Every structure is written in structure tokens, then in C-alpha cells.
């Protein structure tokens, strides 16, 4: 395969020789031939327009498939885009040429494939300076373009294409059977001179249809005429370079203006006009063009002697704009199945079958997962509620146990007023039996009876409040008041056990937010524990100190006794359920106290007193709102 390492501008050593490493000292020519046998070929494809055009993508696809299917060695295909019509002109071409030269200086090319007229013109102009001696294959260049140029060098080959004007007109007339009028629009410049070329071709198929050629009109005149067209007309157009006023247009610009003005459907046999408002036409399949170019390149790269033998020109394919099909009410059934339909909102299933399947699968999986999670959450919630109920039940059971422990004291508390009531009633009876006017004595007695009755019922009320199995209810509480109530409740038991209690409340209200019964229960549990610890204590140690302290954001209650205390090892287990140092203890009191305190956002801890005994500290968050209000 002929490859020349001569370079335009600064002559560099081929990067390929460096890539070959150890063989860099061998004679250059030999190396190149060896390389040609062993190394991948490198091809640059130069497109005239934008990277994103469907035609380019299609051509590239056909090209690569063919090359990769037919080459033994891997072939590198580089792509460049001249980006016409957005960019153009001498200066631009020079810039592009410089860019390509610099970019491919270290990538010796085996061939250059140019696509379309513009790219061919460009390469012919700069070939000697850019890629001297590198064979050029062209694709998608019109036969008309080639005919208008000087004869190409023998190493510039390709299959010229022919635009299918006649086929396009035939298709248009098929879709618009009532059309009797064909309007053909061309521009005014030399490049626009297509009339003589297409007239014989079209005349041959017209039949009863009358042809009207609008060639070289000014754009306003053209548009005016197009607006007047009736439903019996069909328009055929071609990219216009210049109009009758000498105004130049970019490739798709004129077609857009024509289609916008026309009150009849506009057709064009060139795919670059797709999307400008034309219905479509028989265009060349760029994928097919790409495949042909690929075949030529494959032969060229493998140095087949007949590489310059060209295949047949590709046949045109029908391409339509779905939106225009709708606009002109063309029956979709009449679109041949091999037509390329653009701008059709793809049916979801057709376009994204796998994506849809995947999405559906994912949705199903996610839904299942979500359902499972919801179920799990429900279960957890149920479990939580059950646990909460259990906690409530347990706390209740513990309160019952406390009540049981206090039975003697409670009985005493109720019995005292009942005894007094009985005695006062007896006295009243005696007085009444004796006769005489002792109204005042009787009134006094009745008053006392009422007071004692009230006293008894209050004891029962307190007891009932403690034993009631109620839902927790948060309300602002003053720890001082709670402590006073608890002390009143426990006083008989304390007396019964010969234990004194000292309360050290704080002057200001120690406000917290909590459930009164639960907080009472915590204090009762702690004080009862202290009492239990004092069972065998000597008289001078039989006292309990309950102190309330206020710090920033926290109120604390500490219960201190001088009883038997607890062992170091028990400290960590104190708050565990069913752990008790008492012989008859259930081991629930402290566990429940902790559950309650934690539920109130507080902490509970124990320590050993400095002179024996135990100190329990309960810390609860202060109720800020009322503190601010206070």
C-alpha cells in the first residue's frame, strides 16, 4: 500500500515509527511496509456538515460495519466535520485545513473519505498540503458536481450519486392523486441551474400533470406565488443558493421559506431538507453510501489490485417527515414499509422496548420493594404499638406491685378517717339519744365527719390515679408539686417503716413536660427502693433525702439514702429488667423508671453515696416555653 511520509510544513518523524519501539533504527521504507502488513489502517472521514445529522450518523454506521466486517486488521476511523452551512468561506476553510494538518500530523493516514460536494471541493483544494499522496475516496458526491469539475486524479475515486427527482415526483403524485399541477422551484445562481438537468426526467413522467418552473424568482415573489397554490398543486424544491435579488441562502434556509409559504405540499429529493417543512422525497440512503465507501476503503487498505473498480450507484430511498404526513393528511397506510419516517413520535414500545421492559421491571421491583417496606413498617409500627402497650402494661403492673407493697399503709390511711367517722357518728348518736339542745356540738361533729370522709376519698382518689391504666398524657408539670404529692402518698408507709424523708425542692417551679402518673411512678419507685435499702438500717441512718436541682435546660431529682447500697458489679445491671438485689423484688422498678425517663427525653443514673448508700439521679429536659413565660 502506498504510504508517503512526506509532510506539508514541518516534517516530523512518523509517530508510527516511535510506536514500533525497538525497530526504530531499521530502514524507514522497510518499516513502513512491515507496518502496513501488521498494523491497523487509519482513515479520516470528512463530512461537510454537522456531526449530528442523521445522514452522517447513518453513513458512519454503514461505513464502520462494512470496514470492520471485511478487514482482517483493525481499522481506525477518524471523523471530522466541516459544519456547513453554519460555517464556510475561505478563511474558515484555511482554519480547518490548519487544524486538520496539525491534528493528524502524527497519524499517518492510509485514506481519506470525503462525504458530499463541499467536502470534495475542500479536499481537492487542500489535499496536497494536508495529506499529499493519500488516496481519496468520495461518497455522496453528485454526478452533476463531478461533471462540473476537472477530471479527478486517479487516486481520487468514488461512486457518484444521482438525486432522484423523478422518483420523488412520482411518489408525490401517488400521495396526491388529485394533483394536476407540479410547481418546481430553483434558485437563480449558477449552482442553482438544475432545470435543464431535471426537465427531461420529469417531463417523462408527468402525464396529465402540468409543470410550472419557478426559477430565479425573488423570494417575495416566489412566496406570493406559492401562497396562491390550490389543493391540486404539489411543489418540488431544491436547496437554493441565491434568489432573483441575489440574496444568498444557507442550504436549508430557502426550503424552509418555500415550505412556510406554500399552501401545497413541498417535496425535495434530498435528505438535508428534512425538517424544514418539506414532506419528503426519494433520497439517497446514506447508510448504503457508507457501506459502498466501506467496501472501496477495505479493498484499498488491503491493497487489492482492483480497488479502483467502483460499484453501482446506490438506489434512492423514500424519506418522509411524519408531521407533514399528518399535515397533508396522507394515509399512513400508503407509506411503503421501507420508507424512513422522521419526526414520528416513536411508539414507546417500538422505540424503547428494552428500556420500557427495564423500566417496567424496575417499577415492579421497586413497587414490590416499597410494598414490602410499607408492610415492614406496618409490622414495625404494630410491634411498636404492642411494645408500647406492653410497656404501659408493665408500668401498670409495677404500679400495682407498688400498691401491693403499700397496702398496709394505704389501709391505714383509709382506716383512720373511717374510724374517726364512726366515732363521731357514735358521739352524735349519743348526743341525740340524750336529748337536749346541743346543736352546735352536732354541727361540729357533722363537719368533722364530712372532713374525714373527704380525707378517705382523697386517699382512694390518689390511689386510683396511680393505678389507673391510662394512656400517657404530656402536660406541663412542676417537679416540686409532683414530689410533694409523692411524699404525701408515701408518708404512711414511711411512718410505718420508721423512716424519715427530707425534701429539698427549689424555690422556682421546676417545669417539665411529662405524664404526671409516670413521673410520680419514677419517684415512688426510687423512694421505695431507698426505703427497701433501709430495712435493716440503724435508727440514725433511717432517712431519705430527695432534692430537686435546676440547671440550664435540665431539671434533676436526686434520691439519696444511707442504706445498704449496691455492689460495684451491680451498677451496670441496676436498670436491667428482672434484675433485683432484693429477695422479693421483681426487678422491674428501675427498669420501668428508666423506660419512662428515656421516653421523656431524660436520663437516669445511679452512684454510690459518699458515706454508703445509693444516690439516684433523674435528669429531665426543662419545659422551655413555660420557662420563658415565667
Amino acid at each position, binding site marked *: 500500500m502506498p504510504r508517503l511520509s512526506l509532510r506539508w510544513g514541518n516534517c516530523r518523524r512518523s509517530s508510527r515509527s516511535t510506536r514500533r519501539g525497538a525497530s526504530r533504527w531499521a530502514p524507514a521504507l522497510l518499516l513502513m511496509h512491515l507496518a502496513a502488513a501488521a498494523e491497523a489502517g487509519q482513515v479520516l472521514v470528512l463530512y461537510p456538515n454537522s456531526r449530528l445529522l442523521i445522514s452522517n450518523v447513518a453513513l458512519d454506521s454503514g461505513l464502520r460495519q462494512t470496514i470492520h466486517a471485511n478487514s482482517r486488521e483493525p481499522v481506525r476511523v477518524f471523523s471530522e466535520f466541516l459544519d456547513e452551512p453554519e460555517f464556510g468561506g475561505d478563511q474558515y476553510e484555511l482554519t480547518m485545513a490548519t487544524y486538520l494538518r496539525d491534528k493528524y500530523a502524527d497519524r499517518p493516514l492510509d485514506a481519506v473519505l470525503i462525504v458530499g460536494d463541499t467536502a470534495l471541493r475542500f479536499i481537492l483544494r487542500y489535499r496536497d498540503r494536508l495529506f499529499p499522496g493519500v488516496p481519496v475516496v468520495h461518497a455522496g458526491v453528485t454526478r452533476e458536481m463531478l461533471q462540473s469539475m476537472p477530471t479527478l486524479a486517479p487516486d481520487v475515486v468514488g461512486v457518484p450519486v444521482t438525486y432522484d427527482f423523478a422518483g420523488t415526483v412520482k411518489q408525490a403524485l401517488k400521495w396526491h392523486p388529485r394533483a394536476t399541477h407540479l410547481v418546481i422551484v430553483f434558485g437563480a445562481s449558477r449552482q442553482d441551474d438544475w432545470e435543464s438537468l431535471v426537465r427531461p426526467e420529469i417531463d417523462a413522467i408527468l402525464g396529465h400533470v402540468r409543470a410550472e418552473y419557478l426559477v430565479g424568482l425573488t423570494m417575495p415573489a416566489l412566496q406570493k406565488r406559492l401562497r396562491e397554490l390550490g389543493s391540486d398543486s404539489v411543489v418540488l424544491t431544491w436547496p437554493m443558493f441565491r434568489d432573483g435579488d441575489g440574496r444568498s441562502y444557507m442550504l436549508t434556509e430557502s426550503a424552509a421559506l418555500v415550505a412556510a409559504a406554500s399552501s401545497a405540499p413541498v417535496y425535495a429529493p434530498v435528505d438535508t431538507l428534512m425538517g424544514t417543512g418539506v414532506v419528503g422525497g426519494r433520497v439517497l440512503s446514506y447508510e448504503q453510501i457508507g457501506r459502498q465507501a466501506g467496501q472501496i476503503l477495505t479493498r484499498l487498505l488491503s491493497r487489492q489490485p482492483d480497488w479502483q473498480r467502483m460499484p453501482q450507484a446506490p438506489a434512492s430511498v423514500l424519506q418522509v417527515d411524519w408531521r407533514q404526513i399528518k399535515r397533508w393528511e396522507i394515509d399512513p397506510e400508503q407509506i411503503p414499509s421501507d420508507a424512513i419516517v422522521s419526526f414520528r413520535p416513536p411508539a414507546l414500545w417500538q422505540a424503547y422496548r428494552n428500556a420500557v421492559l427495564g423500566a417496567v421491571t424496575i417499577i415492579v421491583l421497586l413497587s414490590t420493594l416499597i410494598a414490602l417496606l410499607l408492610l415492614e413498617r406496618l409490622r414495625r409500627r404494630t410491634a411498636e404499638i404492642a411494645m408500647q402497650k406492653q410497656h404501659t402494661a408493665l408500668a401498670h403492673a409495677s404500679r400495682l406491685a407498688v400498691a401491693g407493697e403499700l397496702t398496709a399503709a394505704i389501709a*391505714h390511711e383509709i382506716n*383512720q378517717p373511717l*374510724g374517726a*367517722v364512726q366515732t*363521731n357518728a357514735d358521739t352524735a348518736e349519743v348526743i341525740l339519744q340524750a336529748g337536749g339542745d346541743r346543736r352546735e*356540738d352536732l354541727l361540729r361533729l357533722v363537719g*368533722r365527719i364530712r372532713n374525714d370522709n373527704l380525707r378517705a376519698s382523697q386517699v382512694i382518689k390518689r390511689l386510683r390515679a396511680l393505678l389507673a391504666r391510662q394512656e400517657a398524657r404530656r402536660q406541663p408539670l412542676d417537679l416540686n408539686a409532683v414530689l410533694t404529692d409523692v411524699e404525701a402518698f408515701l408518708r404512711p408507709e414511711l411512718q410505718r417503716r420508721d423512716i424519715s424523708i427530707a425534701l429539698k425542692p427549689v424555690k422556682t417551679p421546676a417545669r417539665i413536660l411529662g405524664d404526671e402518673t409516670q413521673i410520680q411512678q419514677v419517684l415512688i419507685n426510687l423512694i421505695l427502693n431507698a426505703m427497701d435499702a433501709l430495712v435493716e438500717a440503724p435508727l440514725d441512718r433511717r432517712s431519705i433525702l430527695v432534692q430537686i436541682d435546676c440547671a440550664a435546660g435540665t431539671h434533676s431529682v436526686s434520691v439519696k439514702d444511707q442504706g445498704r447500697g449496691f455492689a460495684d458489679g451491680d451498677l451496670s445491671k441496676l436498670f436491667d429488667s428482672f434484675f433485683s438485689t432484693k429477695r422479693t423484688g421483681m426487678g422491674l422498678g428501675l427498669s420501668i423508671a428508666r423506660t419512662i425517663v428515656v421516653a421523656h427525653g431524660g436520663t437516669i443514673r445511679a452512684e454510690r453515696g459518699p458515706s454508703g448508700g445509693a444516690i439516684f439521679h433523674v435528669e429531665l429536659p426543662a419545659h422551655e416555653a413555660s420557662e420563658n413565660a415565667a
Partner: protein
Amino acid sequence: MSTHTRPLIHIVDDDDSMRMALIELLKTTGFDAIGYGSTGEFLLNSLPDRHGCILLDIQLPGPSGLELQAALLRKDVALPIIFLTGHADVSSSVRAMKAGAIDFLEKPVARETLLEALERALASDIARRNTVEAARRRQERLDLLTPREQAVFERVISGMLNKQIAMDLGISLRTVKAHRAQMMQKLGASTPAELGLIAGKSVESDEG
């Protein structure tokens, strides 16, 4: 016996309303009554020597009713005690009755029950007081005897015969008889059995 006609009931109960109710009832039913809130308060008051009894609660702040009972026994305060308790357990009732309590009542107590118990206690108090009074009078008479008459008295009530007394004391039988007659006259007794009564014990009588 005191000059007061109404018995005095001491009520020891820490419950104010109970204590006041009891005082009221007792005063209405013909007693005098004094209330104490604790054992300490009771002990601090000097007890008038009056016919009466103690109504004592067992559960009291500080020393309990049972402890007060024990203390009173030690101090020879012999007022009869009725225990009145909110809740009677067997062990403390047994302890109380063993220590000489008249009764052990449970609150609330019916008036009849209380008054019956009071009657018993007051009767017991009267009996005790009578016994004490008799002993005191006996002692008064014994105090009239000369040492020699005293010696003869002791020997007579221990059942010795005149001859034995004479030998024992180293005096003549006639002297013994003279002392004995003198002693019998002073004590107001005509037979040895009466002497035994005065001495608080029965005497075997063998001669006139």
C-alpha cells in the same frame, strides 16, 4: 381513791381527727379524756393518780404503742391499756395481750365494743386500786407493831406454835402469848386466819 367521780381516759393516737373524735365521744358518754399525739407526749405529761385507763394506738410516729406499754410496765404505771389499731396483726396483738393489755380493738371500732372494753378496763383499774388500797391499809397496821410484836407476827403467819416461837426468840411462853395478844389487838384480828389475810397469805391454824 381520787375525789374525781368521772374516770379519766388517756388517748394516745397520732391521727388528729381520730383522737378528737374519741375525746368527744368519751366526754359525751361520761368520761374525762386527754389526748396525746405520740408516746413521747404521753410520757412527758405527769400522770394524775386517777381512776382511768389508756386507749393506745399501736402505729405511732417514733416509739410504738407496744413500746409505750413496755415502758409503762417498767415504770410501774399500772393503768389498764386498751389497744386500738388500724390494722391488727396477730403478732402484735399476742405481744400486747401477753404484756397485760385489757383488749385489742380494731378501728373503726363500734361504740358498744369500745365502751364494753372501757368498762372492763375501768373495772380492772378499780380492782387493782382496791388491792393496792388494802395492802396500804395493812401496811399501816403492821407499822404499829413493835419489833418484838413484828417478830411474833411473822412467826405466827409462818405457822409456828407459841412454844416454837418462844424457843426461837429465846423468850418465855408467857411473854410470847402477851406479845401475840397485843399484836392481834393492834392488827384487829381474832384468829390466825385473819392474820394470814392481813399478811396476804393463808395460815395453818392449830390453836387458839
